[in-house]
């Protein structure tokens, strides 16, 4: 058996070498011309040599270890911003006095890098200090056109000296923005005015202590239901200075770079967002006092403990925040939270899981009337980490008062707590001078930072060892075989022993810090045991491989769990040092009474309707007739955003009353039947418009015959209501131009469109840049390249994620210009039409609805969708090839892409772009910057010498239901065209991110809106390239049957080794029969019709 195996592997090796050599030849051929099918120029793939420069496996901790004896810099190096070097690739503008700055400001675009020569006076450790603008900026190119516009996302840069990145952490440095709140004020005459959280009115209001009691006036406006409405977040531009910090928070102090005396270059490379830089200084961070020194210093200066009244800041009134997601929350769980109402929404707190990522901060202002030492007591709650604590650091007027203030602890508790700010050992008091101060709380990892950093290092080592072993053993290690690990990878064995020791030690330290063992250390110890055994007994390595893989995944989850630091704040009290802490929770009877009130209140409160800020007067009869009702089955958050958008943007432009209702999916059908349905339904599925339309529940949007023709709005021009803004309504043709051309295909049946696109999602190719460099692979441009990759990947035991069944084969077939249904040429259409004319007159055919006039004005029989095209050569061949990928090439059928991509065992996957992106951003922060998504590989067409890299998209739609009538149909259309416009779509997308975080990217179908969303330049270029090459499958009566039978065919081939072609062909009759049956139900011509009329097909 072993002999056979050896023999086999030798054979395989020879084969592989041959194939790879041949593959190179194929590559030469395929590189003839790389161009997307629609001529879109940019297939942005970061060149791998460029990436290589940025890749490093050195972690900051080992970097510091090397240079631990080097002193910190005494001198500062101030960079002359105007002297950037010639080889800078970024778009750069220099402006004097930009936004009130003194001297020259450097505006850097959202692409490329900028290089400076520096002259280092002494060999030492330097940190990078940058003063930058927190607002959005615009960068112009040489010709004066706008090259980059800020999109309000965090600014990310790579900083490195000379040729390469010194340590991993320097590869992604984040510079936070600042966000202010914009409050709406409703005047007595119902007009709105606005003020923001940096205005004097706001600052005076929150500094006045009288306003900090629960029963004082509120700043939040009330909506028509009596609930408080949240202020909106707006980016706030100011100059701010910051050192470059480790984004993950494992190292609490500014990052230090080792520079020798002499000439060097400083490189700043963009990941996201343009950036306006006022000053770059290389210097050492100044030392901070310890707490004892701090107290001694102020006591010596005569400071006394404060003894007066308690000062309070209500947490729901922040001046600035670092993220737009940090918005006010209504806490209903505790009756002590200030203020409180038993049924209505009162914003009384802030934070929770929106305020959990390292670096996020919230800033308040306070007016101190008397100098002295204060006890700072936040009323806070941390109920996520049992047996552990979360950390914050406090900055007073932008300064860390003393060193311990960056490790403030908040212990776990299911109820609110009012503890004096402490580090687990000492309760601190803070010296505040009389006057106005800013108080900023920032998320840090505190005492856990060092530990988490080490676990993260261990994890990346273990993942690397795992891959190294995998390359020797293959995916299914044989435990009985001796792989001679000691000879092949002695460093890995040594590494295992070290990591085991590390993990055990970390576990001990955690127990010391948090005082209890618990779950946390359990995970670490469990992993340590296995790792140690693998290090000590190499013969057991093969047997433990699966366990190791699972454990590293667990460790990864452990890490991301422990780095999140959620904390909910109700208020912050500044009080006399010896005063009693405020009450943290209500007593038993008080809570009971509050619960009783809530319970009875719940009978009368209306939780479903989404209220507006101002009740509009719609008593005018003409206006009332135009009113429409819009339904959405999205989340409550999204419904609220829609409501707000309607109130602001829609009502400003169009004076039509709109009711937004949040419904449960599935209510649409019964409601429409009962005649109580909506006028417009948002977020309908891809097949819904046509399916509803053939049952006359949805109106056509471009023809009078089955609905309304919104290409011709002239008939409403004199309408008393519509007439005013008729010029502001886009026509149907104008609206469809907003989408990829194929996006309307599924909603269009025989020339009539029954809906417009809402969202559009499609697959793109995700790959791990670091692993591609490691394996020396190039990103595939064509499927030939892709096939060449498979060998290299599989010989290294790596997987490829590929859409199963027809998911993949349709993409291939569409790239070869084949279609799901049989398509007809002009002659064939005419032949069929003539066939029909032998039996019926033209008038009869029109009467029966068997013909229609297409866009070019030709009369066509309604024969599309009559016959499935799965039997075509292309379709069968692509299907067979996809089946072979899963049977012969052993592609995995089901897998968790998030886990495998992150662990690096699936470095290439074709997957839906939004959902995969959203998962990766949250789930795998440790590989951020190491992966990218690009358009799919394409099919090379030798005739035109182009590569067609189309993908197949799924679209959702907006539909106009039959609830709409003559009078309000244009209202419905006005709403639909408004919703799909670029401004509204991008605002909605950005608001969603504001509400739900960076992992809530919205897959709009509007290409212009996509460009306004917070994608980075590279991401956007790739997206746009793929957007231009999107195909959609059409919908016809009976379409549902296709997916079903093709899946059967795939499973048959996969499970039972059936011949894919035979299997697929065996279902063709069933599919066609169902299409025919459904068409008969709707009185459409079928293949049967033509058989009866005498075979046209024979003539063909």
């Amino acid at each position: 058996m072993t002999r056979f195996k050896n023999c086999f592997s030798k054979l395989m090796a020879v084969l592989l070498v041959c194939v790879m050599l041949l593959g190179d030849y194929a590559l030469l051929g395929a590189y003839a011309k790389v161009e997307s099918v629609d001529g879109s120029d940019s297939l942005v793939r970061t060149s791998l040599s460029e990436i290589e420069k940025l890749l490093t496996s050195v972690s900051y901790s080992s970097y510091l270890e090397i240079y631990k004896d080097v002193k910190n810099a005494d001198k500062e190096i101030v960079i002359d911003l105007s002297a950037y070097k010639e080889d800078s690739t970024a778009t750069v503008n220099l402006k004097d006095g930009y936004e009130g700055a003194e001297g020259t400001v450097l505006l850097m675009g959202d692409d490329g890098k900028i290089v400076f020569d520096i002259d280092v006076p002494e060999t030492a450790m330097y940190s990078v200090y940058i003063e930058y603008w927190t607002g959005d900026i615009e960068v112009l190119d040489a010709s004066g056109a706008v090259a980059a516009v800020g999109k309000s996302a965090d600014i990310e840069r790579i900083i490195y000296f000379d040729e390469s990145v010194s340590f991993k952490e320097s590869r992604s440095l984040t510079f936070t923005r600042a966000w202010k709140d914009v409050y709406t004020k409703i005047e007595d005459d119902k007009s709105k005015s606005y003020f923001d959280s940096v205005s004097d009115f706001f600052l005076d209001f929150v500094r006045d202590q009288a306003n900090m009691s629960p029963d004082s006036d509120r700043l939040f406006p009330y909506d028509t239901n009596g609930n408080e409405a949240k202020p909106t977040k707006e980016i706030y531009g100011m100059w701010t200075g910051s050192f470059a910090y480790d984004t993950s928070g494992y190292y609490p102090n500014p990052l230090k770079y080792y520079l020798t005396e002499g000439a060097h270059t400083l490189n700043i490379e963009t990941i996201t967002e343009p950036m306006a830089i006022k000053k770059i200084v290389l210097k050492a961070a100044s030392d901070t006092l310890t707490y004892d020194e701090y107290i001694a210093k102020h006591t010596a200066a005569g400071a006394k403990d404060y003894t007066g009244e308690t000062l309070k800041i209500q947490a729901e009134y922040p001046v600035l925040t670092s993220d737009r997601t940090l918005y006010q929350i209504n806490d209903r769980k505790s009756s002590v939270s200030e203020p409180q109402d038993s049924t209505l929404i009162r914003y009384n707190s802030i934070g929770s899981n929106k305020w959990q990522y390292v670096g996020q901060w919230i800033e308040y202002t306070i007016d101190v009337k008397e100098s002295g030492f204060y006890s700072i007591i936040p009323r806070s709650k941390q109920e996520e980490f049992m047996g552990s604590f979360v950390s914050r650091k406090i900055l007073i007027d932008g300064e860390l008062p003393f060193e311990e203030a960056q490790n403030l602890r908040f212990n776990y508790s299911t109820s609110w707590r009012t503890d004096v700010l402490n580090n687990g050992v000492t309760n601190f008091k803070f010296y505040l001078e009389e006057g106005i101060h800013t108080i900023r709380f920032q998320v840090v990892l505190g005492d856990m930072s060092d530990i988490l950093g080490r676990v993260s290092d261990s994890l990346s080592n273990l993942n690397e060892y795992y891959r190294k072993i995998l390359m020797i053993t293959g995916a299914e290690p044989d435990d009985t075989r001796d792989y001679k690990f000691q000879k092949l990878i002695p460093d890995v064995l040594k590494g295992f022993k070290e990591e085991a020791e590390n993990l055990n030690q970390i576990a001990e330290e955690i127990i010391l810090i948090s005082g209890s063992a618990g779950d946390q250390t359990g995970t670490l110890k469990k992993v340590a045991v296995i790792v140690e055994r693998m290090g000590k007994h190499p013969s057991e390595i093969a047997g433990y491989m699966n366990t190791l893989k699972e454990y590293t995944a667990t460790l990864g989850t452990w890490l991301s769990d422990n780095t999140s630091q959620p904390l909910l704040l109700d208020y912050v009290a500044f009080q006399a040092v010896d005063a009693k802490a405020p009450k943290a929770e209500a007593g038993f009877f008080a809570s009971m009474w509050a619960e009783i009130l809530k319970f009875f209140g719940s009978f009368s409160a209306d939780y479903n309707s989404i209220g507006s800020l101002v009740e509009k007067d719609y008593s005018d009869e003409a206006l009332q007739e135009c009113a429409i009702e819009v339904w959405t089955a999205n989340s409550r958050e999204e419904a609220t955003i829609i409501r707000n958008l309607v109130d602001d943007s829609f009502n400003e432009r169009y004076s039509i009353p709109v009711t937004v209702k949040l419904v449960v999916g599935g209510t649409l059908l019964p409601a429409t039947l009962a005649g109580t349905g909506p006028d417009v339904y948002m977020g309908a599925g891809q097949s819904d418009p046509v399916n509803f339309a053939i049952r006359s529940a949805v109106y056509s949007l471009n023809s009078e015959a089955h609905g309304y023709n919104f290409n011709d709005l002239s008939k409403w021009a004199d309408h008393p209501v519509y007439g005013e803004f008729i010029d502001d309504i886009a026509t149907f043709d104008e609206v469809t131009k907003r989408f990829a051309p194929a996006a309307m295909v599924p909603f269009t049946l025989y020339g009539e469109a029954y809906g417009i696109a809402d969202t559009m999602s499609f697959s793109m190719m995700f790959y791990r840049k670091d692993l591609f460099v490691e394996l020396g692979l190039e990103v595939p441009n064509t499927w030939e390249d892709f096939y060449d990759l498979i060998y290299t990947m599989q010989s290294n035991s790596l997987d490829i994620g590929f859409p199963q069944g027809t998911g993949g084969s349709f993409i291939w077939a569409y790239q070869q210009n084949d279609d799901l249904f049989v398509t007809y040429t002009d002659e064939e259409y005419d032949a069929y039409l003539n066939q029909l004319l032998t039996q019926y007159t033209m008038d009869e055919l029109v009467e029966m609805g068997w013909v229609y006039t297409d866009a070019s004005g030709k009369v066509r029989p309604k024969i599309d969708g009559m016959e499935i095209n799965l039997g075509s050569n292309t379709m069968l061949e692509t299907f067979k090839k996809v089946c072979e990928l899963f049977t012969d090439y052993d592609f995995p059928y089901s897998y968790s892409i998030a886990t495998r991509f992150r662990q690096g065992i699936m470095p290439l996957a074709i997957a839906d772009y939004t959902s995969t992106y959203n998962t990766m951003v949250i789930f795998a922060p440790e590989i951020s910057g190491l992966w990218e998504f690009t358009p799919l590989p394409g099919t090379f067409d030798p005739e035109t010498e182009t590569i067609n890299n189309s993908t197949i998209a799924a679209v959702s739609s907006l539909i106009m239901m039959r609830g709409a009538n003559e009078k309000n149909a244009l209202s419905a259309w006005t709403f639909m065209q408004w919703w799909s416009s670029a401004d509204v779509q991008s605002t909605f997308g950005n608001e969603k991110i504001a509400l739900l975080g960076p992992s809530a990217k919205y897959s709009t179908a509007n290409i212009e809106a996509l460009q306004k969303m917070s994608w980075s330049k590279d991401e956007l270029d790739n997206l746009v390239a793929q957007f231009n090459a999107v195909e959609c499958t059409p919908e016809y009566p009976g379409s549902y049957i296709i997916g079903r039978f093709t899946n059967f065919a795939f499973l048959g081939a996969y499970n039972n080794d059936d011949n894919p072609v035979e299997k697929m062909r065996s279902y063709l009759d069933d599919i066609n029969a169902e299409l025919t049956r459904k068409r008969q139900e709707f009185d459409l011509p079928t293949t049967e019709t033509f058989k009866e009329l005498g075979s046209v097909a024979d003539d063909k």
Partner: protein
Amino acid sequence: MAKKEQAVVRKDISRFSWTLNEIKKHKVAYLMVAPFFILFIMFYVVPVVLSVVLSFTVFNMLEFPEFVFFDNYIRLLFDDEVFITAIKNTLIFAVITGPASYLLSLFFAWFINELRPKLRAFLTLIFYAPSISGAVYLIWAVFFSSDQYGFVNAYLIEFGIINEPKLWFQDTDTIFPLIIVVALWTSLGTSFLTFIAGFQVVNKDLYEAGAIDGIKNRWQELWYITLPSMRPQMMLSAILSITGAFGFGGVITALVGFPSPDYCVHTIMHHLDDYGGARYEMGYASAIATILFFMMIGCNLLIPRILRKVGS
């Protein structure tokens, strides 16, 4: 007071007015049963009748139904191969899981009944747990995950029994047996509990009397004494088992997806969902429902006849 009132005899008046009379006489009782009765009619009788009516129409849920006489039934019975598969599968499920789960419940209940009360309560909880904890059958999907790192696949690959992951719930060879096991596992629910209760109420004196009358072993005791004295419980369990087996569809959809590959575990419930949901053919779906309804009624009529044989 009742002296003068002459008893109304059934023969004297028409059946209708006699009933009316009776209702008047017992109007308090009728009043008390009314809330349930109204709800029962509204939510059970009316829908069933409506469904039977709809089964004679073509109804796409968006437009007004169109009357087509027996077309739906003709197509269903003579021109729908999938429906025949569905009937076959449903009957197999009903025959295997219905009685099997019934007998299993009975025997588990019998065994557990012999144990000490505390241990009995504990075991009862264990056996009953699968059916109270809702979607707990989904752990089968975890065990038999088609991922190569799914529990069963991972172990089988490790032991060298299979070389590549098997798609347990997508492979026509393995779906059926697996589903039957899951069905049996989940079905040890209410009927099991009823049996446990049944065993508790058997009059203990009967065993003594039986012993005197010549019962030789525990089997005879079970057959001649225990079972006959708990016929009502058996009746309830049987009806629950059979209806459960006929309506067994949700679990399959959750584990296998809808529709199952090659319709291999397609049941009447699935067929009904298919036409009522994806295909917008409510008339046809109603015809399916009607047939299922009568199949269930038939089975439930059969059960008492079989149960009458117990103990004889």
